[in-house]
């Protein structure tokens, strides 16, 4: 869908993007993750043709990114707003027209969205008379009304109340089901990792990781398991060739938890077979690294 190749963007005093490349597959929900100031918004603005890259190329469906592609991209910026003294419908229709829709088509689609999102009765209201949550719905409709093939959402859930956030999230996922490619940008890794099929991590203007979420998890999984048992006292679990313990056992409400790491070439069943006679099992769970942990791990790696 979008191929970003060796983008460099320099500002006066610092380099915002240093040789950043990534592939955003069609139909994916792509998480663009990284701390504040890492360069996410700079990259997004380049994709939206708000600013130009100093070097590098972007291809939209195999074509070099150009002005006509604007009509196929929907953008919800982090700093988003609306004209306060303009009627909701006028506003949505105006923004849709700027994206190339005819007035008639824009009105028709706006009506459909108003029905779908329970926004009836807002048609002629001024934006300043709407609550913040309502304004966010209007912004959402304005972002998707021209049926973009690519949606770019910069910190989409910041400032949303939980109910609206859930509703909007589901709408985005619906659109994704229908084939829309979505780029989520966020500094809160945990907020989007459950949604994303692919991610890229950016730190200090450089991409440090990219790929399918499942692949990344697999790659970074360290074969750690958490074992919970109900014995009266902590038991030393060492002694098996299948695994070794990591750290001390922790006690919580009469249960003990212990993290173990499987050794190369062993299955979890080997560990269970060894432990079965020793402890009274309460549970066993694989520890999947969160994107946050992977990120921190990667950043440490990079700086070391």
């Amino acid at each position: 869908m979008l191929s970003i190749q060796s983008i460099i963007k320099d500002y006066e005093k610092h380099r915002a993007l240093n040789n950043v490349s990534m592939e955003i597959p069609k139909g994916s929900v792509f998480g663009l993750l990284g701390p504040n100031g890492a360069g996410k918004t700079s990259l997004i603005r380049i994709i939206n043709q708000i600013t130009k890259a100093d070097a590098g190329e972007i291809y939209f469906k195999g074509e070099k990114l150009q002005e006509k592609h604007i009509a196929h991209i929907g953008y919800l910026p982090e700093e988003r707003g609306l004209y306060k003294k303009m009627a909701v419908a006028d506003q949505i229709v105006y923004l849709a027209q700027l994206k190339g829709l005819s007035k008639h088509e824009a009105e028709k689609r706006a009506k459909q969205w108003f029905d779908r999102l329970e926004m009836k009765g807002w048609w002629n209201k001024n934006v300043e008379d709407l609550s913040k949550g309502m304004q966010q719905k209007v912004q959402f409709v304005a972002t998707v009304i021209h049926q973009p093939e690519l949606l770019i959402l910069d910190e989409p859930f910041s400032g949303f109340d939980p109910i609206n956030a859930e509703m909007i999230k589901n709408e985005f996922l619906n659109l994704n089901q229908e084939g829309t490619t979505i780029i989520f940008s966020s500094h809160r890794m945990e907020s989007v990792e459950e949604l994303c099929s692919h991610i890229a991590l950016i730190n200090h203007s450089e991409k440090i990781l990219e790929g399918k979420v499942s692949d990344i998890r697999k790659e970074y999984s360290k074969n750690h398991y958490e074992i919970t048992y109900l014995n009266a006292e902590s038991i030393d679990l060492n002694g098996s060739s299948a695994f070794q313990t990591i750290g001390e056992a922790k006690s919580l409400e009469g249960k003990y938890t212990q993290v173990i790491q499987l050794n190369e070439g062993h299955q979890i069943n080997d560990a269970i077979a060894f432990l079965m006679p020793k402890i009274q099992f309460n549970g066993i769970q694989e520890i999947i690294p969160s994107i946050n942990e992977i990120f921190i791990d990667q950043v440490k790696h990079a700086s070391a």
Partner: protein
Amino acid sequence: MKKIALIIQREYLSRVKKKSFIVMTFLGPLLIATMYALAIYLAVNSEDMADQKKVVVCDETHTLSNIIKSNEKYEFNFSNAQLADLKSNFDSSGNDYLLYVPNKGQNFEGVQLYSDKQPSLAFVKYIEKQLENSLTDKKLTDNGISKKIIEELDFSLNIETIRFTDEGEEDGNTSASYMIGMFSSILIYMFIFLYGVQVMRGVIEEKNNRIVEVLISSVKPFQLMMGKIVGIALVGLTQFALWIILTTSITGIIGQKFAQDKSKLMNIENTVAASNTDKSEPAVAATEVLSALSTINYPLIVGCFLFYFLGGYLLYSALFAAIGSAVDSESETQQFMMPVTIPLIFSFIISTSTVVNNPDGPIAFWLSLFPLSSPIVMMVRLPFGVPAWEIITSMLLLVLGFFGTVWLAAKIYRTGILMVGKKASWKEISKWLFYKN
């Protein structure tokens, strides 16, 4: 182009639909009409309203009783009492003024006018004029000039100005040129200021609303800026057009109503004539101005007016847009407004003082070529006659100046609108000019 048209449409409609626009459209001409009506009313009724004032004269020269005569406004009574008595009895005498003329020197030295309230300037001037005239007459008769000759000396002279033009000789009229020049330059000045600031406010609004990033993901910053500038220009033109239509129709109706009462209208003319010390001149001048207004080359003036009107606005509003993009709120605009408003105010002051009195001088010449001042200065010069090559050069420079400022403003604008929460400095803005994109 389609997108610019959309932006122009939004900027135009959102402003024209506003209550404040509708209110101002009707209130503006109403205010002008009210003032006009009030002026006529006052002129007609001033005699009824003002009581005749009583002036007691203590004339120690005993020469003035034939010279200073009572009129509708002032009743002069000559008293033989001493000044001290008149002064002490002044409150109970019912007089409004006490005029004291001592017999001192040859030229009425030490004349004093006593009153409770500060007398009007017109009254003081009136008495001064009377005394001066009587002295002049006296001196002339003393030197053997006959009464007849003295009466013949009372005449007024008007110079007819004729300009050599391509069409031959043409009647010129300095006061008509003066009026037209001043009027157009005031209009242009007002228009630039009122609507230039609106452009700035619009830019700040979009920046504050945070809608600007959504917009420029669909349109180019340049399109957004130009759409706003043109849209607001159309709002201004609409407002002016409505004002002209409404004002002329309202004043027309009022004028007609008063014209029905012909005797009253005659009264106005008499009042105007009587209130001036140089008797016949203003009345004659008024009719001459009216006839001279028809001698002015209207197609040229109107054409140039529209050109400079729009050219000046476009040039300045681009600068105002750049200012708006560099700040977060209107209160921060002050420091950046200065360099933009100073040339505007400067050219207005110069044109209404220096240029109008010397329309062919070097200051007038250079300022009417310089794009930042030409829209205002050239309009003052035009009715006096300006060579074609100067007009064409001035217009070309204005067009160049317009492209220059738009280019400059666009560079500041596209960087400025995305800078939120940063206080821009002059140094920073000058750096924006060299950003690649």
